[in-house]
């Protein structure tokens, strides 16, 4: 990859902004992730927000839920643009891993994100 991947976090309300802020606070890395909220958007408006957020770069779209307007519009966007992968169930752990591994192809980065995000979900001892 000649250009580092961009991560776009797509969510309801302010979840995306909060996750992006948390990643920057923990890692000090700015600009690797862009938040997109569906607040106040119909499908066309959310598509336009995605277009502005992704720009002319390969990207992984990290969506909050495995359904709903954030997902349907992210998949619609990926269908219409090259080098875009979509991951659902975004969490902080997968984003922290992603910002340090942006030299991968979008599909590979997406698989890696799913692995790292899933490993962070566990029941801990009391």
């Amino acid at each position, binding site marked *: 990859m000649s250009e580092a991947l961009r991560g776009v976090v797509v969510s*309801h309300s302010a979840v995306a902004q909060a996750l992006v802020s948390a990643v920057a606070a923990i890692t000090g890395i700015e600009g690797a992730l862009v938040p997109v909220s*569906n607040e*106040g*958007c*119909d*499908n*066309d*408006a959310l598509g336009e927000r995605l277009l502005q957020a992704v720009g002319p770069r390969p990207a992984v779209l990290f969506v909050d*839920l*495995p*359904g*709903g*307007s954030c*997902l*349907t519009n992210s*998949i*619609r966007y990926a*269908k219409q643009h090259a080098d875009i992968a979509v991951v659902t169930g975004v969490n902080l752990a997968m984003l922290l891993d992603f910002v340090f591994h942006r030299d991968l192809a979008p599909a590979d980065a997406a698989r890696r994100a799913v692995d790292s995000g899933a490993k962070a979900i566990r029941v801990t001892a009391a």
Partner: protein
Amino acid sequence: MSIALYRIDDRLIHGQVVVGWGQPLDCTFIVLVDDEVRSSDWEQDLYRMGVPPSIEIIFASVDEAAERLPAWEADARVGILLVPDIDTAAALAGRSDRVKRLNVGGIHHRAGRTERLRFVYLSDDERAKLRQLAAAGVEVTAQDVPTARAVPLAEFA
């Protein structure tokens, strides 16, 4: 129980519909009335992804919906009927006298529309069409989620 909710929502199937309304209504089928989606297998696959397996999705054109509404109304299950815009709602109400009430659940900002409620933006033409529906006997209210107040048409259009 039949169709418990006739809803105008420009996002169609999304969280407020599936979770916000679907859970308390115990909805087990959603009718999505949209000529464009009805003619696109790919768009239908996209909307199916947003719904748990326990909920059936039925895609219908306006003409098909008008024809099948009596059967859906007689269904023992609880259903939600979605249309993407006021024109589709008016077209369906014009073809079927089964549409007695309309929930305006989400019409977002676009050029030419002004804010009427936080989740409802309308052009003058759209306001007039909603008033025409009400004059024809359809109860029109705006309510994004079940826990919110159902706002009467006179307060937003």
